[in-house]
Structures are given as structure tokens and as C-alpha cells.
């Protein structure tokens, strides 16, 4: 990770300070637009290193990030979420698709072309131990962006670094200390200070809190929150912890095997998930409430493991583990459609919504097996809601459907 951080930094030597530092993208406007983004890592074998296959880490992503918002990206390990983060920061070269930042195509910009961009897009890494160079002082680490971009901040580099340290809640007098003198949470703050040094527009944070203890995690989450409000930052936060993602995000993208399966506003997603995978993912999160111990009725267990991204399943990639899969799921890939305002789903048989392929009703044998792991209550409820929505002929009335969704029900029970 540090390697990449350094590469990125080194890739941008002495850039004249003349680059425009405009804060022009108004809140709500599209800051970053990604179309059909792909990254395939070749698998090479043998003496001649012939390519024998490819890991389809990211396989056709479409989304946009609006200025001032936080986009959360969730998924299990190996779903390509980190690769996606590295593609949009251009630490990796995309295999296909386009990335536009503020309307400018940056998909295949070279090192020099990316230099002015580096100032606007910064990254916070997961592991605060390996992303800071142990032989550099904190002062050197945080001032590296100024040095590399040739920026002379007002009042001098040292003063600016000390200001940044106090912004992220560290003691400015620790300027000359080394990373090993700090705890994990403090190091993550250092990483954040470095990312903020050049006043970026977009900060991509790859699992910013997953290496931290619970109490420290909350400190960093709150810090990211405060910084966004003060500095008007836009975040892309990649994480596997669904509760953290819900807490920080405005919109959330759920990834499965290199694809976005659902992209929706936080509330719609958590109240009425439409993709079966989203539903399973959310039901699997252990709830810190002993009264619900052993209540299996709402938990959807997925059978087996995530298939290999080297040869992903045909059609819908989730069909091998989905309890609703039919023939069409095996043959036709569902497009990511905006079925409800602000909720895009790629599924033939979405939950909490009208069936997209009602003619196809015969379950695959895999699906029958998978359905055995799904509690009856969930199946019935899902049938009910689908029927209810169908009755409304897809009038997209969120209110009623959201009420019937399990998330809504849980909250109702709480009260």
C-alpha cells in the first residue's frame, strides 16, 4: 500500500503551482462519472508467460459521485471494491470503460497528465501501519504532497502541516515524531491529514476504519464526518462493515463479483433492499442485542462461497447462490436499472418490487437448494411484498413497501 502511495506521489514531481485550484463543482453536481469500468488482471503461465486467463476483478461498473456526498461501497472480500478505488484514483490502469472527473476524461491519462488531478483526488489507505513510511517523520510525510506538487502553502510548509495535524486532532508539536510513536488510530489520522494537505475535492478511503478498535473506529468516523462538513469534501468510502457504511454514506453501492448489483440511497437500501444479495448481506450482520439471540427466522444464509472471479458465472453472477434464480438468471445478465427513484438494481426478480421476468417462474436446482437455507418467514414476506407491489403495478410508492420490508419492521418493533 505504501508503495502505491509513494508511486502516486513520485509520479507527480515539481508541478508548477499554477494549476487551477478551483472549487467549482457545486454540491449535487456530478464530480466523478464512471462508465463501463473494467479491470482484468492477466494470469500468466509457463516459460513464455503466455496469458492463460484473467481475473475479472472489476467488470463493468457504472456510477457517478456527486460533489459533497459520500458514496459507500460494500461487498465481500474479492468483490473488486478495492480495485475500483484504485481505478478511480488511477493507481491502476483500467482495462476498459471511462472515468470522467469534473467532465474530463482521465481514463488513460499518462503520468504527466494525471499530475494536476492528483491534487484533487486523494486516497486514505486501510492499514495505517504499512501506509506510512517508518523512516520519515510525520512532518515529512504530511508535507510530501506540497513538496511533490511544488505548492508553497501560505505561512510556510511547517505551519500548514501543524495546522493539518490539529485539524485531524493530533498535537501539532508531534511534527518531528516517527510513525511508530503513534497508535493505530493516530496513524490513521496522519494518513487523513496527508490526504487533506492539498485540499482535494474527492477523497477515496479504502477501509479507513477496519484495522482499528471499536472505540477508535468511532473517533475516526466522526472525524471524517466533521471534515466533510467543514471542508465540503466528497468521499468514496470502501468498507465491508455494513453498519459503518450506513453510518457514513449518503448513497451506497453494493458490489458482487466485480459488478454493482444495487446502488441506492442509504435509507431505501437499508429499509427495502431490492437485490437478493443485498438482503442476504444485511441479514447476516450480527445485531448487538441479546434479546434477538438465536432468532434465526430473519437470517438468510448463503450457501457456499463466492465463485471465482477468474470464470464468473454466466448471466447474473449471483445466480449460483440465489434462492430466486430461474433460467433467465443463468442466461441473461440483468442490467442495472433505476427501478425506483434513486434505487438502481440489477436483478430479474428483485425483492420488494415487481418481478422483472414474471414469465420465468421455474427455479433452478441451485436455487431450490439455496432456498432451503432461507427462512420461510422471509420467503413468505417477500412473496407478499412482491404481490403487493405488483398489485400497485409498480407505482413505486416507497412508503408502503418500505413498511413491509424487514428493516422497517425491525425498527417498528424497537419502538
Amino acid at each position, binding site marked *: 500500500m505504501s508503495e502505491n502511495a509513494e508511486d502516486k506521489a513520485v509520479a507527480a514531481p515539481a508541478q508548477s503551482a499554477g494549476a487551477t485550484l478551483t472549487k467549482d463543482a457545486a454540491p449535487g453536481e456530478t464530480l466523478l462519472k464512471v462508465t463501463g469500468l473494467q479491470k482484468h488482471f492477466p494470469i500468466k503461465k509457463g516459460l513464455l508467460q503466455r496469458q492463460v486467463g484473467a481475473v475479472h476483478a472489476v467488470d463493468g461498473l457504472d456510477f457517478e459521485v456527486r460533489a459533497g456526498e459520500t458514496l459507500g461501497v460494500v461487498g465481500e472480500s474479492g468483490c473488486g471494491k478495492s480495485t475500483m478505488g484504485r481505478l478511480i484514483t488511477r493507481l491502476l490502469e483500467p482495462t476498459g470503460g471511462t472515468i470522467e472527473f469534473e467532465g474530463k476524461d482521465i481514463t488513460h491519462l499518462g503520468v504527466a497528465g494525471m499530475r494536476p488531478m492528483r491534487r484533487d483526488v486523494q486516497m486514505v489507505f486501510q492499514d495505517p501501519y504499512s501506509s506510512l513510511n517508518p523512516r520519515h517523520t510525520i512532518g515529512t510525510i504530511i508535507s510530501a504532497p506540497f513538496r511533490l506538487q511544488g505548492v508553497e502553502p501560505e505561512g510556510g510548509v511547517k505551519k500548514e502541516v501543524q495546522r493539518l495535524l490539529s485539524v485531524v486532532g493530533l498535537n501539532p508539536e508531534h511534527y518531528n515524531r516517527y510513525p511508530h510513536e503513534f497508535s493505530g488510530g493516530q496513524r490513521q489520522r496522519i494518513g487523513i491529514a496527508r490526504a487533506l494537505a492539498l485540499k482535494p475535492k474527492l477523497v477515496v478511503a479504502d477501509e479507513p476504519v477496519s484495522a482499528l478498535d*471499536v472505540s477508535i473506529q468511532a473517533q475516526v468516523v466522526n472525524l471524517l464526518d466533521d471534515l466533510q462538513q467543514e471542508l465540503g469534501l466528497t468521499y468514496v468510502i470502501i468498507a465491508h462493515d455494513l453498519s459503518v457504511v450506513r453510518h457514513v454514506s449518503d448513497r451506497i453501492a453494493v458490489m458482487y463479483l466485480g459488478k454493482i448489483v444495487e446502488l441506492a440511497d442509504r435509507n431505501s437500501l437499508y429499509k427495502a433492499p431490492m437485490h437478493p444479495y443485498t438482503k442476504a448481506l444485511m441479514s447476516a450482520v450480527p445485531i448487538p442485542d441479546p434479546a434477538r*439471540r438465536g432468532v434465526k427466522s430473519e437470517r438468510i444464509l448463503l450457501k457456499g462461497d463466492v465463485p471465482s472471479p477468474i470464470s464468473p458465472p454466466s448471466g447474473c453472477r449471483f445466480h449460483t447462490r440465489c434462492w430466486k434464480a430461474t433460467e433467465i438468471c443463468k442466461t441473461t445478465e440483468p442490467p442495472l436499472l433505476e427501478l425506483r427513484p434513486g434505487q438502481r438494481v440489477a436483478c430479474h426478480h428483485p425483492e420488494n418490487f415487481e418481478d422483472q421476468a414474471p414469465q420465468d417462474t421455474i427455479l433452478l436446482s441451485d436455487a431450490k437448494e439455496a432456498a432451503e437455507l432461507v427462512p420461510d418467514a422471509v420467503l413468505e414476506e417477500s412473496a407478499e411484498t412482491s404481490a403487493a407491489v405488483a398489485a400497485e403495478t409498480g407505482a413505486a410508492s416507497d412508503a408502503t413497501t418500505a413498511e413491509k420490508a424487514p428493516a422497517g419492521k425491525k*425498527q417498528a418493533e*424497537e419502538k
Partner: protein
Amino acid sequence: MTESTKSGAAVGEPAAASPAPSAFLEVRDLKVHFPTDDGLVKSVDGLSFTLEKGKTLGIVGESGSGKSVTSLGIMGLHTAGQYGKRKAQISGEIWLNGTELLSADPDHVRKLRGREMSMIFQDPLSALHPYYTIGQQIVEAYRIHHDVDKKTARRRAVEMLDRVGIPQPDKRVDNYPHEFSGGMRQRAMIAMSLVNNPELLIADEPTTALDVTVQAQILDLIRDLQKEFGSAVIIITHDLGVVAELADDLLVMYGGRCVERGPAEKVFYEPRHPYTWGLLGSMPRLDRDQQERLIPVKGSPPSLINIPSGCAFNPRCPYADVPKDNVTRTVRPELTEVGSKHWAACHMSQEQRERIWTEEIAPKL
């Protein structure tokens, strides 16, 4: 929860000197200290608890709070290492089924380890030997404690792999760990630790390295297996969600000490220690409406070499300045009973804590 859970796994009174414990597992005033060049690291500093058969104890705390050191202590794995002259200094008593483990003959403890008590480790990839097949490793664990031929042992291994839900166990038994996925490796580890039907199972962060969907599978598996085998389980984790799923009793550790323990419901619904409040407030929750802000614990965990005198949580405690009656701040607070089978170690009076919890903390969670 039900009556049975409350009454079953009694969380015992801090150790009295008399032996003959009635509980299945009783730990009394356990101390594990490591001498280092920088000073004595007091990883565990006076920990007592009891656990009955068929019950689950959850130990929660941050990294460095002594959770894992406790579990290794029970397994007798601190003294076992002969590398270098630096050994852990262990004192206290660990009673398992009427045997005191710390003073027992190491050979005897070795016989118990794996048979009476066994452990699931956090990272299955480093806990499994990469050079041996899964089957060989399970067979070894079985044959150490049972005088059977290889064929019988292999049958037993296949049977266990099947029990933990590995597909085609008769084929997978000959696979190497690298041929298994993360979730399957953890299943294989569980199979290995249960092959001798241990009465005590210690799971040290069994699902931390796993994805949430796989975690759900493994937690269900542990719960089912416990029902089937009736073992006592200690589950160590930093994830309050995981303990809420499994544990009957909860023990919250901070700086090598127990700050609160009691039935899980009590600790979750009526916590009586500011650190437990902090843990609950730090956690974003899916089952509640969106909180505006998390309430983190300020500062960072203490150094185990210089544990703050008095209450270890004092420097981070938001209520450190609350006036307390007849209390010397440098005195370490003892665990006092705050409810039925519910103990907490705090200098604030019980009324103060009750008031703070109900008026200030609980409404914000």
C-alpha cells in the same frame, strides 16, 4: 431472555481461597505478566470468572486488553513455549472439571489439551500447517488422544468434516489448507478442535477474518455444535454483535482487568461501567434508526506497562471528575455486585451510574 440462561452460567464471586469449585471452569485471580526490556507487561492482572457446561461466555475488549492472553493461559500455552528464557509469569488458579491446571503436571495438561479443552484460532491459514493435508492434521489430533488405527481415525476425520458442513468430505479430506477458502478453513479448524469432543471450547476471534455472510454461517455452526456436544464455550471477540448472538454471559475487559461481567442481557441493557457505555456508543447499529453521531471513547488504550493507578479507565473516562464518596482515586476499584450475578468495577456509586445510564447514555444510543 429465558430463565434458564440467567440461572445456568453463574458468574462467580471473586475468588475465595478455598478450593473445590463446583463450576466446570473456574478462573481465580489469574495474572499473566511478561517481563520485557521496557518493563513488566501486565497483560492479565487479576481475572476471575466461572463457566458452566453447555453455556457460552463472551469476552470482549479492545486489542491489548488481555482477551487472547487469557485464553492462551487457560490452554496452558504460555508456559509451554520454551523459546528463550523469557517466560510468562502466571499466577492464580484455573480449575477445569476439578483439576487445577496451573500447578498440574505439564504432561497431564498436555493430555487434557485437545481432549478436554480445545481452541479455534483467529486466522485459520496460519493455524493450519500448510505442508499437511487437512485430513492428516485432524487424524493427528484424534490419534494423540485415542488409540485407534489410521483408518478409523480417517473415518472420524471425514465424519467431522461432514458435520461442519464441508461438501464432499471424503474427497476434501485429502486437500491442503491452501485449497480451501477462508470459510472452509475455519470450518476445518472447528472440525479439528471438536474431533475429540472437548468439554471446553475456546474460540479466539473465530470470525474476525471472515466475510459477514461466512461469519453468519460459522456462528450458526458453533451454536449448533454446542447444542449437540453440550460443551462450554468461551468466545473472544471485539465485536459486540457476535457476542450478542452467542453468549449467555459477558465479560468486558479493559487493560488486563475485568471491568464488568454478568448475563448478556444485563450488560447490554443495564451496563454499569463507563467503558461498556463507551463500547456501546462507539458502535454504529443496523437495527436502530440512524444515529447522528457516534459517541466514541476519547483517547487510546493504556500501555500495559504503566497501567494508570487506580481505575485503568480513569484517563479516558468521561465521568472521572464526577464527585465520588469516600474514594481514593489511586485505589483500584474492585468488582462489586450491581445486580443479580452482575458485577462492575467503578468508583461511582451505583445510584450515580444508574442515573447516568438511564438519563444520559441510554437515550443517545
